[in-house]
């Protein structure tokens, strides 16, 4: 079986001039199969978000190649990259990033609209599952942080993406609420056999994945823990 995600010697540098000044990724390679889970650790500024952006087709690496299901996303046009994200990737952010202008229902159904899916039953199902079924017509500002994050998760997962990228999903929440969120992500990923890459600082989240990597000086170091 081919890996779902393959990174080959991916490098990223930010520069204002001709020379590379910041090197968040200095040659990263990684294979992940359908249903795999990975936790990404690292200090602030080590390049974790950069890594997620590149895998998710939001950002392009300076060098190296990224494959998804055999297709090379590093060769896609920005248009095709958008289509790729639309169909295959669900992002979950630390600060939720719901649209304050849209209702909860509209936030969650937006990815379906983008794909031209008119059947909203999956959106209703997910909101039920997250315990937010009465919130369909409310605006995000009326929700607590934990509730907003649950809506954001429903929005990320409603289209059934094969890849889920979560950037410190519990970073803005207290421990108890955070644990609830982690359980929710775990449950939904399991149901749909999605592949997950999650960035976290929280030791409470380590149980989510057996494989853990630490980004340090631009390279991925696998860490082995025994619980």
């Amino acid at each position, binding site marked *: 079986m081919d890996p779902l995600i393959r990174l080959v010697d991916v490098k990223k540098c930010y520069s204002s001039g001709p020379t590379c000044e910041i090197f968040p990724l200095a040659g990263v390679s990684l294979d992940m199969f359908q249903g795999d889970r990975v936790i990404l650790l690292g200090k602030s500024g080590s390049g974790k*978000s*950069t890594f997620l*952006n590149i895998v*998710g087709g*939001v*950002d392009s690496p300076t060098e190296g190649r990224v494959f998804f299901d055999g297709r090379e996303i590093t060769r896609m046009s*920005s*248009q095709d990259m*958008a*289509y*790729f*994200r*639309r*169909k295959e*990737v669900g*992002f979950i*952010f*630390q*600060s939720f*990033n719901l*649209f*304050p*202008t*849209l209702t909860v229902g*509209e936030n969650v159904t*937006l*990815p379906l*609209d*983008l794909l*031209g899916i*008119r059947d909203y039953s999956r959106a209703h199902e997910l909101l039920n599952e997250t315990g937010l079924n009465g919130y369909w017509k409310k605006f995000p*500002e009326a929700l607590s942080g934990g509730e907003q994050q649950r809506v954001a998760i429903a*929005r990320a997962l409603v289209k059934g993406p094969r890849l889920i990228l979560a*950037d*410190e999903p519990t970073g803005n929440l207290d421990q108890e609420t955070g644990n609830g969120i982690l359980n929710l992500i775990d449950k939904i990923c399991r149901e749909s056999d999605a592949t997950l890459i999650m960035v976290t600082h929280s030791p409470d989240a380590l149980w989510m994945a057996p494989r853990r990597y630490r980004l340090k000086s631009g390279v991925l170091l696998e860490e082995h823990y025994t619980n």
Partner: protein
Amino acid sequence: MTIRTLLQFNFKYYRRHTLLALLCLTGISLGVGIVVAVELINDSALSSFESSVDFLSGRATNSIISTFGRIDEKHFQEIWTNRRVTAASPIVDVIANTLETDSEPIRFLGVDPFLDAPFRGWTPQLSGKDDLAAFFAGDPPGAFLSSDLMKRFNLKVGESLTALDAGLEKKIRILGPLTEDSSGGLGENIAVMDISSAQEVFGRIGRLDRIDLLVEGSVSDAFPALPPGLKITDANSRKSTLTAMLYSFQLNLAAMSLIALFVGVFLIYNFSMFSVLSRRQDMSLLLTLGCDSRSLVLAFMIESVVLGALGSLAGVIFGYSIAAYSVGKVSSTISQLYFLVNNLNVGLSLRILGIGVAVGFVATAVGVTLPALEVAVTPPVLGLKRQSIEDRTKSARAYLFMGGAAFFIFSCLSVWASRNSIFWGFASAFGMTTAFALFTPGLLSPFTHYLGVVFKKSHRLLDAFLAARNIGASLSRTSIAVAALAVALSMTIGVDTMIFSFRTSVYSWLEDALKGDLYISPDTTKWDHPLPETLIKKVEADPRLDSIERYLALDVYLQGRPVKLRVIEPEILEKKARFKFVGGEESHKAWSQIIKGGVFISEPLAFKFNLKVGDFLTLDSPDGPKNFPVVAITRDYSSDQGTIQMDRSVYISIWKDDRVQSIALFLKPGASIEDVRKSVAALFKGLERTIVSNHEMRERVLSIFDKTFAPTATLKGVSLLVALLGIATAMMAILLERSKEIRVLGYLGLTPTEIGKMNVYQGLIMGVASFLIAAMCGLLLTYIIVYAINYRSFGWTIDISVNKWIFVETLGLTMAACFVSSLYPSFKLMRASSAASIKEE
């Protein structure tokens, strides 16, 4: 924290947002520019007219004019020999076009050089014997021209000038320039001829237009009694009567400039408020860091002074250029409609400069200081959250709506009050516009919401759905821009519908009043060029004609104010034309009474002089004042000063004046109009220029009508432009404030094109919203303009007719313009969103 730090802070902000700074300045300068341009044009028309009156009066203390247009030569002797008169000069004063100076008419002055010498510096020095002979008895007659005119049209001594008198060609020999010292800088096209040649060339034998006088002491002592029908004036009273004629023209411009100013102030406010509000976060941070709110507000006030100064300066320059550009058109309109003005000079006066700068400053100061104050008094914690502004807008919406309702009621009451003063008419228009501007947030919010619901339901226009929601979410920005555009558009719709209704009314009046198959009607009717008697005799003799109607229009004075007297032939018109009598006059009765010495008066005249059917009006005649009963009030749009119509035979019997300025030809059934036209045109040289068909005659009147409203179009365009800049800034504002949300859209898989399209939809939706609001407001404005402004100032009834094409055109134009103004922000957005990574807070 010192003011200097804060100012540096603000300066850096503008340096980083150069485009914004430019938009802001453009908004201010356009607003100021419109006002300055209108003032400049008004000023230059008036001052050029006044200097021309002064110039023509020369050293004369007084002039004698006729209350019905002509002075019999025989009166001169009596006036000249008056002991108190030190000098008197008889003048023939005719304006005519010439073939050589096509678009510029020339004022031909017929003088007696010896009698006129004490009055003017420019009387030509007659040098040689040849000159003298040519001047007094030349064939063709000779004339001296203002040197500037000769230079501009490259006219040479000895060449001939072809003056068009009633359209007929009259040759005049150029004898030379008027002496330089005096005619230089006078800015008027003048030709000086011998008085008797002028009388002969221009068909005024035995008659004078004016007698200039040098009188010692009081005039009323000198002339205890003048011959009947004559009137003594001086330069000042002449200025003021004629300036009063410009009233309607200036009213038109003033109304436009007021509305443009309104839009302008709105936008300046919009721009500066945006520039402050987009720094809201920074300001709140500064407050949190311990900056006191007094210095914060002060820093912003200083900023507004700088912006206001720069913007006003640019605005004055801009206004000056518009004025300089359009002054030619304006002067030809004024010449055509009111009196001759040549070579208008646009001169910037301190007053105008003051007005322009004040407008720029006040609007900028209000626009910057108000929001800065608001931020300063808001606790910094709340200020940090962008959403709190929108929350506040939400609650403000209800208050604004109630304010709008108050203005609406005020506007309706003002319509009622306008019967007392026209001021209330303007107040009403202003109130209505303000009302709708205040309604805007309240209307925009549900509109975008339901529009969003519709787009969402359609499952297709996802970008349009997001766009609608974005507008609804940024109401504090978008509603100002939409309101400004709506104000500009409703002005467009209101004024256009008024002009269209007016034009339709004029057209149907023309259709009823002008029934001749052909007209011999020189353009120059207003310059009083009578048609030669031989011409009329020859035309009348044509066997294909059923009848002709002779027509004469002259300026007479009614209670000291100039009005038009139209001398008509009722026997013919009753059969051929359809007059619209106001107030349901029985038409056969009116026609039979005018023959017996009654007069018809036009609506404006009835309105101005408060006359009703059955009243009497008094006109001066050679036999002293005469009373005429008003037998009917007619619809007549030919003059805003008002017209009196009188039977030709009644006129001739009293005034002993059988001039004819134009004739209408009614053909027998079956006669070919083209054939008659050709054979009549062959009778006299130049007649082909003045013989026109019924259709051409109507077109000619309508083209004058259109010219009157031409400045309106320019101003309308500028204020529309100002408003569209507002839309562009509002979109930039959304872009700046919602950039993070837009990036999240990228994460969800919106392509750059889709994001760009979403932004374009935002512009279009704002355009549609503005248009819908403007359509309602514009129609109401039409009624206000027609009933509370137009009727109150001129007294004529206009039937309101709504033209759907005005709406279609306005909508099309708005959409196109909104599309264009959304292109740049969309382009920026697309570029930004193709590298769509997001920063976490």
